[in-house]
C-alpha cells in the first residue's frame, strides 16, 4: 500500500498532467503549469474520492500545496 503522500502526488500528477517527479512540497499553482481554478476543482473531487473525505469550502481553497493537502487529509482521518 502506497503512502498517503505518494497517493496525493499520483493524483496531483494525473490531474495536472505532469510527471510525479516534478512535484514537491513547494509545488503550488504558481509553479505547476496546469494548476488553474478548474483543475483545482478536479483535484478536490479526486482527493475526496480517493481518501473518502470531504473538505469544507474554505479549507478546499487553502489546499494549494502538497504539504497542506497531506495535513488536511490526515486531519480528516483520510485513509
Amino acid at each position, binding site marked *: 500500500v502506497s503512502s498517503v503522500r505518494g497517493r496525493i502526488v*499520483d*493524483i496531483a500528477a*494525473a*490531474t495536472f*498532467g505532469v510527471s510525479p517527479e516534478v512535484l514537491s512540497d513547494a509545488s503550488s499553482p504558481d509553479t505547476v503549469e496546469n494548476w488553474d*481554478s*478548474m483543475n483545482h*476543482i*478536479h483535484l*478536490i*473531487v*479526486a482527493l*475526496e*474520492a*480517493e481518501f473518502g473525505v*470531504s*473538505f*469544507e*469550502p474554505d479549507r*478546499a*481553497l487553502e489546499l494549494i500545496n502538497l504539504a497542506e493537502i497531506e495535513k488536511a487529509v490526515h486531519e480528516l482521518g483520510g485513509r
Partner: protein
Amino acid sequence: MSETFEQSERSVDALATILSEVDHRPASYLSGARKLAQLGAHPNLLPIRVAVLSTFTFEPVLPYLRVEGARRGVGVHALALPYGQLEQQVLEPGSDLFHFSPDVVIIAARIEDCARQLVDGFVALTAESIEHAVDAYIERVASLVRAIRERRPVHVVIWNQAPLARLAAGIADTSLDASQQGMVAELNQRLALAVIAAGATVFDIARIATEIGTVNYYDGKLEVLARIPLSGTAQIAIGGGLARHLRAIVRSPCKCLVVDLDNTLWGGVLGEDGVRGIAIGEEHIGLAFKAFQSAIHGYRDRGILLAVASKNNEPDVIEAFKTHPSMVLKWEDFAASQVHWGDKATSLRAIAEELNIGVDALVFFDDNPVERGWVRSRLPEVTVIDVPKDPLQFTKALDACGAFDQLALTTEDRKRSELYQTEAHRRALQSATGSVEEFLRALDMKVIIGDVAEPTLPRVVQLLAKTNQFNMTTRRYSEPDLRALLARDGTIALWMSVSDRYGDNGLVGVAIAVREEPEAYRLDNFLLSCRVLGRQVERALLCEVAARVVADGGRTLIGELIPTKKNAPAMNFFAETGFSQFLDRDNLWQLSLSNGPPSPPTAFEITRGVA
C-alpha cells in the same frame, strides 16, 4: 499483411491501452482524458463536435465525457460555453457557439437557475403562477431549439429537470393540491413534447439523478466554490449517460444480441449437468439467470434480434428450451442459432449472414473470456461485452454497453422479432418451390405504396438512417430536414409496405425524387430494407415513382448511385431496370420516360395507400 494494417493495429492498441488504464477514480479519468486529447483522431473513434450551453459551470464534466465517449467508439471534441449565456450564444450570428461549428448542441438549463420561483418559493405560488412559470420555462427552451435549428442543421439535445435537492413543503409535499415533485414530473413530460416537436432529443438527467440518488447527485460545496451543482459521482455518471446519447446520435444501433448458453443463460453446463441439473428458476442463483433471460426477452420486444452461439449438442439445447419449466426465453425467440463445436467467430459470421445483417451489427455476450478474446481478435467489428463474473451483474453490463441504444422506438421496432421468425418459414417455402416467379406468387404478397406524410415520417427517417445495403445514396435526413424537403415544390416522396402470407413486414421501402429541371427528376433517395430483398418489390416502387414523375410532366428520371462499403446489393439495380449510365459521370444513370413509365411486376398485388 500490409504495413498500413499493422500500423492501424498499433494505434488501435494505443486507444485500448489508454482506456484500460481508466478505473472508477476521477484522477484516472482526468489522466485518460489528457491522453485521449494527445492521441487525437483515431480510426475507431467517430469524431463529433459538441457545444454545451448551460446555466451552471459545465466544464468539469468534459474529461469524463471524453473518456466515456471513447469507450463507446465516439471521439468527443467538446466546448462548454460560459454559463448563463443561452440566448446570447444562440441569437448572435458570430458567437463562439457557431464559430465552433458544433455537430451537436446540448442545452442544460436547470429551473434552480432560471425558474427559481418554482424551487424554494414553491409553497407561496398559486396554481396559475406555477403554470405560468412552467409555460415560460418550456417556451424559453423550445424557442432556443428552434432558433438554433433555423441557423444550423445541428442535433440539439435538451436536459430535462432532475429531482430537486429539497422540497419546499418538506414531508408535506404529497399533501399539496399540486405537489412540487408532481410539477417536476409534469414539466418533464411537457418539455419532452415541446422540444421533440422542435427537432431536439431529450437527455434524461432526471433518470441519472434518480439512479445515483439526489443526496449523491448534488454537491453544495462545488456549487458555492465554482457554480458546479454536480458531485464528482454525478459528473462521471453524466459523462457516461451523455456518451450513450451521443453514440446513439452518430452510430446506428446494433441489431442482434448473440448469447452463449452455459453459465450465461443458465448456471452450469448442460452437457454435464443435464436439463434438470442446470441452474435456472426460483431458487438462489437460478433466479439471477431467470432475471437475465427476462431482460433479454425485453430486448427482443424492443426489436433486437436474438441468436445463440454455443458449443453444445443441438438436440440437448432444444430439449432444454422445450422442457425446462423455468426458461423465460423459448427456442422460437431466437432468430438464428449456431449450436456445434466449431469456433465462435465462424458462428457469428454465419449468424450475420443468415439474418442478412452486417457483422458490425452483432453484440456478443459470453461468460467465457477466452471466447470473447477469440471473437475480438477475429471480428474486431463485433461489440463484445465485458461480462462480469457475477450473474447478478449481467443485465447491468448488457444495458450499460449502449450498443442497442436508439433515441426513439417505432411500431416496426416492436414487431421486428416476429418478422424474422416468419422469415425462416419463407425461406423454407423458397426451397420447396421452383422458380423465383413461382415463389413470389406462392408468397401471396401485397404491396402498398403511399405518399410520405406526418404519420409515416418517423419510420421513414429511421429507414433513411439505418438502411445500409440496398440504399442507392445513403443520404440520411432528420425529421425536420425531411419535412423541409417534402414542402419543396416538385418533391415526390413515397413509402412502401409489404405483407405476405406469413405476416406484415411493415414499412420497408422509401423513394424520394426531386425535380431538378422542368422535365427531369432525380432520385435523391431509394432504399429497401434487407428483409424484403430479392422479391422484386423494389421494381414496384421504382415503377410507381416513374408513374408519378410522368403524371407531373417529367420525361426523365435520373438515378444516383453513391457506392459505400456496404451497399453492394444496390450496385446493379439501375442497370437491371433499364437505366443507362451517363458517359461522363460514373454515379449518374438515366431512364427515359418519354414512352411512359415502365410496367410494374405482376407476381403480386400493388395498391396505393394513404398516410
